């Protein structure tokens, strides 16, 4: 293209004939100056790449030629395949989400008064090392809502809508008249008026018992009514004490719901008093008593952020937290170069802000966006530290990425051959993206 243009052009300055460059430096001098850089580059970049390539064709101990065995392991080994799959997820989502967020931040900060301060805050995570960010997010995603802020928020929101119950771990003790049914408990036999029913349970932590509990007392028989008591049949230090009857220090289950069930239908229901006693009308005669599951609902424990299903999205979230700021700064710089007149012209022509953003700002920013996405892609392909630190041992395999698998194969399992093959494979993945970036850069310079 360049030569065609030169041929078509009128005879301008003659093409340089001699081997001397514009500044007149000799080749040897140039070589001399290039030498230190070349030596360093050769020793630190080219040689390791070459050696990895060679090593990837040898077996684990390095003394036997293995052909393509290591490469075939890339596609047969389960954990490498998981890593590969996760890498795809990473490459697709992490750069796009970071860039999208960066774009939104950049465009919005243009228009607010404290834009610079806001940018500073968003960019700040970039100043933190990957390792520190990993440790921070390990805590953020902690399962225990008292420690992990993500679950603290989630549980807080959940509990505003759905209360947990007072007796989460209550269960029948030995020789209990109760059997489990649908998460609750039901008496084995039907109850009858005038014969007090006992519904003893065990297993509620004393500090979790609701306020207003009193010492449990045995219910008195009342003619024409079904009476009974439900209480914690457990004495500290003595086990159950007297089985099936309230001991002096045992407390009633205040507020426990009790339903009388006949043929699957609730005929009467009540709540236990502070001392655990309750009374049901005569209609409950002959019914079975049920302690419905609502009494025993476990406290909501939040989301299993670092469990096998969510671990990769969770780690990508922490990556976005770090790199959205980077994207924002680059895009904001690009935005500064966008001619204001175009935006103004669009507005004058009656475009809405959304149209201005979609039809003018984004197309003008496209080159910058591409550079940001591609840079982040290269960055994401080698992601290691975040995954290594955030994923707990039990889900490390589910969160695996190629760089981590490389480390595990090479340094923990003593499989340098396969590790080298992974590194070569990673290099192959990076090359097209790199080539794209370099070409872009060249074009940019030419412009």
């Amino acid at each position, binding site marked *: 293209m360049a030569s065609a243009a030169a041929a078509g052009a009128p005879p301008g300055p003659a093409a340089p004939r001699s081997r001397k460059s514009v500044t007149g430096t000799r080749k040897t001098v140039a070589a001399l100056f290039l030498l230190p850089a070349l030596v360093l580059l050769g020793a630190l970049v080219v040689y390791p790449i070459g050696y990895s390539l060679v090593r990837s064709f040898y077996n*684990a101990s390095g003394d036997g030629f293995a052909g393509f065995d290591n490469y075939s392991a890339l596609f047969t080994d389960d*954990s490498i395949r998981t890593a590969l799959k996760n890498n795809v997820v990473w490459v697709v989502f992490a750069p796009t989400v970071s860039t999208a967020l960066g774009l939104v931040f950049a465009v919005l900060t243009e228009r607010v008064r404290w834009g610079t301060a806001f940018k500073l805050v968003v960019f700040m995570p970039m100043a933190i090392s990957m390792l520190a960010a990993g440790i921070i997010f390990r805590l953020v995603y*902690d*399962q225990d809502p008292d420690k992990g802020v993500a679950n603290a928020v989630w549980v807080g929101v959940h509990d505003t809508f759905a209360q947990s119950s007072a007796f989460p*771990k209550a*269960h029948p*003790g030995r020789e209990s008249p109760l059997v489990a049914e649908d998460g609750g408990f039901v008496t084995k036999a039907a109850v009858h008026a005038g014969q007090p029913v006992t519904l003893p349970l*065990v*297993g*509620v*932590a*004393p*500090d*979790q018992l609701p306020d207003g509990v009193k010492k449990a007392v045995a219910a008195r028989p009342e003619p024409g009514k079904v009476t009974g008591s439900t209480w914690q049949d*457990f004495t*500290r*230090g*003595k*086990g*159950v004490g007297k089985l099936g009857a309230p001991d002096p220090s045992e407390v009633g289950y205040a507020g426990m719901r009790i339903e009388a069930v006949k043929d699957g239908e609730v005929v009467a229901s009540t709540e236990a008093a502070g001392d655990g006693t309750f009374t049901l009308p005569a209609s409950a005669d002959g019914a079975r008593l049920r302690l419905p599951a609502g009494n025993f609902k476990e406290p909501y*424990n939040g989301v*299993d952020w*670092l*469990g096998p299903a969510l671990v990769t999205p969770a780690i990508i979230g922490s990556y976005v937290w770090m790199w959205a700021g980077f994207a924002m700064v680059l895009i904001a710089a690009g935005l500064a170069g966008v001619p204001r007149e175009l935006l103004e012209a669009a507005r004058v022509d009656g475009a809405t802000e959304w149209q201005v953003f979609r039809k003018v700002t984004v197309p003008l920013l496209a080159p910058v966006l591409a550079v940001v996405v591609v840079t982040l892609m290269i960055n994401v392909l080698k992601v290691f530290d975040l995954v290594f630190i955030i994923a*707990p*041992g*039990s*889900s*490390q*395999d589910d969160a*695996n990425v190629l760089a981590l698998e490389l480390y*595990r194969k090479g*340094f*923990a*399992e*003593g*499989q340098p051959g396969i590790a080298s093959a992974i590194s070569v494979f990673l290099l192959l993945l990076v090359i097209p993206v790199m080539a794209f970036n370099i070409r872009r850069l060249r074009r940019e310079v030419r412009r």
Partner: protein
Amino acid sequence: MRSKSSTFRTHRAVTTCAALLAGALALSACSSGDNDKKDNGEKSGGTTGPSVTLPKLNGAHLEVAAVWTGGEQANFKKVLAEFENRTGAKVTFVPAQDPIINFLGSKIAGGQPPDVALLPQPGAIKQAVQKGWAKPVGAEGLKELAKNYSQGWQDIGKVDGKQYGVYYKAANKSLIWYNAKVFENAGAKEPKTWQDLLTASQAVYDSGVTPFSVAGADGWPLTDWFENIYLSQAGPEKYDQLAQHKIKWTDPSVKQALTTLAQVWGKKDYLAGGQDGSLQTEFPQSVTQTFTGGDQPKSAMVYEGDFVQVNIGETKAKVGTDAKVFPFPAVGSDAPVVSGGDAAVILKDSKAAQALITFLASPDAATIQAKLGGYLSPNKNVPVSAYPNAVQQKIAKALIASGDDFRFDMSDQAPQAFGGTPGKGEWKDLQDFLKNPKDVAGAQAKLEKDAAAAYGNGG
């Protein structure tokens, strides 16, 4: 590579001699003081006289590599200081990283191996011997070993009948630690059998406390759980066969052990946080959550070895009063004793290195560290009274009493890819089993598949 380092050493020896000459000292000092064994050792021996005689090694320099950190490292350095006092040699501690065998590999490739390394797995000793790194223990060391160690502890330091490793430190991995207050409240007693353990767990559960804390985020506590049950249930012979992968993981004995294990792991309410919570509980947390929270800790018991004490130290609980321990109950006829340990291995043979090995095999060295706490010696001549508290004395006694009936941690004997890699092999498979304890056959199949792959290529 080795020659390079040895020229370096001779060079230094020459300089030392020159310095001595300049100091107008007798030339004989240079011709390495062979036979004066007395004077230096005597004055630093402390209250008890030294039981081992060491050569004088003025001017010698040793490097010792181990993965220990923190208090453990500080305590071990005190033992090395005693060796320096007695012999006049200079010993430097080189902190290493796990897996130490890879660390040593890079050191050896670099031509600077440490003189002595402490290897935590029998598999690592074997590897070191196969690669030609390890040097056999000399006559002095062998004599000391024979005097102080039971046959079993000597044998696991042997490769092909030759003694390479001297077990300096042991771990008793058949212990269950419990919160004494919770047991008291629940009216539970220290169980002797697996059935008792289940009864005690139920009593604890009835009292409103979750019985167990299982560190499922780390894989190794899970393998240790399995090993104790398997050793007690299937017996030592089967244990050895499985450790060498002579029987398959699909064996009925494995099925039985996993089924037994599921009696605890399979009950959501028996595990602090349930199965999912356990899988995100790391080992230190599993200990601290058992011993914090007053009357209502998150769990009542935590299984692991004697080193649990270190983590209990991070809480306010006191070992012996708030935190107590009982041996892992017998699942089969006998209670299991699963142990671990670190063996000292010579990587660069010299008189000084041999002397250090001899010293580490002696009760003198072990007693020093035993007094400092957090340490257990397989040396049967270390007085039980040397341990600082009753709990440690109990653990030490149990270990020595097991004589040759103990078995070394199975996952430590397995190739690293199977028994020692986070998120892989046995660690991962048992984590999956903890997640889904109903699927015994599936867990066995996965274990066998991973084991076959790992043992097949020799790790």
